[in-house]
């Protein structure tokens, strides 16, 4: 059993009681909601004649269904309009703060909460969205919940949950040039497998993690869930604190000093005990691309798609399914695979640093004429900053479409969708069958820089050839 890790300290602090069944009742410090997983929860609350217990501990935004071409209201899509109206009404009726389109603070929930300073070390954070693990980058314990648990948090600010085990993933050395946080996390998921994290929280640590910026750390924690871990976190340090400082909802004045002292006391230390520790060498990671239908099916850019015989018995079944669905042959190179669509965005890689890296690759270059490319900033703030830096112009000049903030083709609930069996190079987090809107659409996950390189060549490419 783990002891004295940040996870243990934060969990124990938030434990309200041990429930008769044996699970813990856990207090949720920050509850984030969006339009897709909350309406039924508010409905259930009404049915049970219950009120929102601490409305000020819940914050809302709208992201999944928003169109990214034309955001004027009412939305063209009636169902999407109905969903945003329902959220507006629920927030108004229950006095929940809502960052709506045009507020300057709307965007993907996991981009917005950190940039507002809502996400802080030591908090428990829950949201009806599996990528809530993102917030763990700040040393909070953050995890996705389902709609019934959203109902429970609204009604009681607590949920029933079993404590997770803690696995430390120690990353030695640092990433080499042209290799990004996305490559590292894809590599980790490939090494450990997509279900290794079930029942665990992942603590990412080591020199390779400390050198990452806060935005890169968010990319890592974001994808914990793709390795099966519902929660991933990184111990807070000076980078964490200076990122939060002066943000809209950050502690101010004497509260800031109190916060800082408390945050520093939370870190795991040399006395911490883990249920498991895994070490890997980050300097060996290369630009990584998925070739299959789970985020664990990835290889580095110069590798060949694995042969069935090279895989463990457990991986064979899914590999066979993947060859067929992706129409890849075992032993084929991933490099130079033609792509039809290039997508930069999502809660994994839709932040300003992601846009900067991609824009650097695209500057004075043109997108291949066979490719439809578009970039969707993660939030209104990201969009504003990008425009200030002239990044939007670089994207447009290269042939990328510049869009309004939202989840967009990460899950294709708006009109941005793959068509038929198109291949997309995507900076998002899931390459599941049909994920990007077409039941036969094919997704190759990679870093935003790699997406930019693929857009220029019209083929999967090694971004290191573009950025010497």
């Amino acid at each position, binding site marked *: 059993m783990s002891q004295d890790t940040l996870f243990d300290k934060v969990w124990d602090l938030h434990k*309200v009681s041990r429930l008769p069944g044996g699970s813990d009742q856990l207090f949720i410090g920050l509850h984030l909601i969006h339009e897709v997983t909350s309406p039924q929860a508010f409905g259930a609350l009404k049915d049970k004649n219950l009120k929102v217990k601490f409305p000020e501990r819940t914050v809302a935004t709208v992201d999944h269904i928003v169109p990214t071409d034309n955001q004027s209201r009412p939305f063209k899509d009636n169902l999407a309009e109905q969903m945003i109206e329902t959220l507006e009404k629920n927030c108004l009726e229950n006095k929940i703060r809502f960052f709506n389109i045009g507020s300057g603070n709307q965007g993907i929930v996991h981009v917005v909460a950190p940039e507002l300073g809502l996400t802080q070390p030591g908090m428990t954070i829950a949201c009806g969205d599996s990528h809530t693990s993102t917030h763990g980058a700040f040393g909070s314990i953050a995890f996705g919940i389902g709609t019934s648990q959203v109902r429970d948090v609204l009604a009681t600010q607590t949920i029933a949950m079993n404590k997770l085990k803690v696995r430390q993933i120690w990353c030695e050395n640092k990433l080499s040039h042209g290799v990004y946080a996305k490559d590292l996390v894809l590599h980790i998921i490939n090494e450990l497998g997509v279900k290794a994290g079930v029942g665990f929280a992942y603590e990412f640590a080591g020199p390779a993690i400390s050198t990452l910026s806060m935005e890169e750390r968010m990319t890592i924690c974001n994808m914990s869930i793709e390795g099966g871990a519902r929660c991933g976190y990184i111990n807070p340090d000076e980078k964490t604190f200076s990122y939060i400082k002066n943000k809209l*909802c950050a502690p101010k004045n004497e509260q800031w000093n109190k916060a800082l002292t408390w945050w520093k006391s939370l870190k795991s230390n040399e006395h911490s005990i883990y249920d498991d520790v895994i070490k890997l060498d980050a300097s060996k990671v290369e630009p990584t691309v998925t070739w299959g239908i789970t985020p664990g099916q990835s290889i580095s850019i110069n590798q060949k798609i694995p042969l069935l015989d090279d895989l463990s018995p457990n991986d064979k079944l899914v590999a066979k399914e993947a060859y067929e669905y992706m129409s890849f042959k075992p032993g084929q190179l991933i490099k130079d695979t033609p792509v039809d669509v290039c997508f930069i965005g999502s809660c994994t890689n839709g932040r300003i640093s992601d846009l900067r890296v991609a824009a650097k690759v695209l500057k004075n270059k043109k997108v291949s004429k066979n490719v439809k490319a578009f970039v969707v900033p993660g939030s209104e703030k990201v969009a504003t900053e990008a425009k200030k830096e002239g990044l939007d112009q670089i994207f447009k000049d290269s042939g990328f479409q510049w869009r309004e903030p939202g989840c967009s083709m990460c*899950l294709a609930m708006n009109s941005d969708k793959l068509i038929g069996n198109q291949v997309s190079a995507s900076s998002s987090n*899931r390459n599941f069958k049909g994920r990007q809107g077409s039941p036969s659409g094919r997704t190759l996950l990679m870093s935003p820089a790699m997406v930019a390189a693929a857009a220029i060549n019209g083929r999967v490419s090694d971004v290191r050839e573009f950025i010497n």
Partner: protein
Amino acid sequence: MESVFTPPIGKISHISGKCISLNGNDIDTDRIIPARFLKCVNFDSLGESVFEDDRKTLKGRHPFDLEENKDATILVVNSNFGCGSSREHAPQALMRWGIKAIIGESFADIFYSNCIAIGIPCFTLSKKLIQEIQNYIDNKFLFLEIDMKNSLAKTKDLILNLEIKESSRKMFLSGEWDATSTLLENENLIENKFNQLPYIKFNSHLT
């Protein structure tokens, strides 16, 4: 199907019914219910869309389309079932199609807790046993009677020792899986916790 759907309530101690087998590891919630069906403000009509894209691809040969499975209630799956998106729409769709319990090699965490929260017990068995059961179902009907108290599944001539987390088993037996009221019983403790937490005053604009 929707007209006759009644969600489970209270104690869940016995589930019996016909098994339906679905082969494959890492079946994610996007496949169980594709994102376009998430455009809804209630769960009512999800049952008919469960596995929509997989079913279309298989043109009537998907287990959820086979005539003999129409009245099945116990789903038998392989490993890491329900990975990916946290959408409760996935177990809701399964439940509204008719599934009352799932037996598998393993389940993804969030999917598992969503199932508990809506009253679908998820049991595990070894890979070997699951494969034997799935092979059996390929040829014959399998009716199981699940006894939650003793974690057993029985047929005429076979008894299976099912595994389930002890806390989940207790919650089903007591009815506590429907968590809201249990959680609310500790209202005072919740208030105390709120007052004790060091950071409640940190986000000044929220208070």
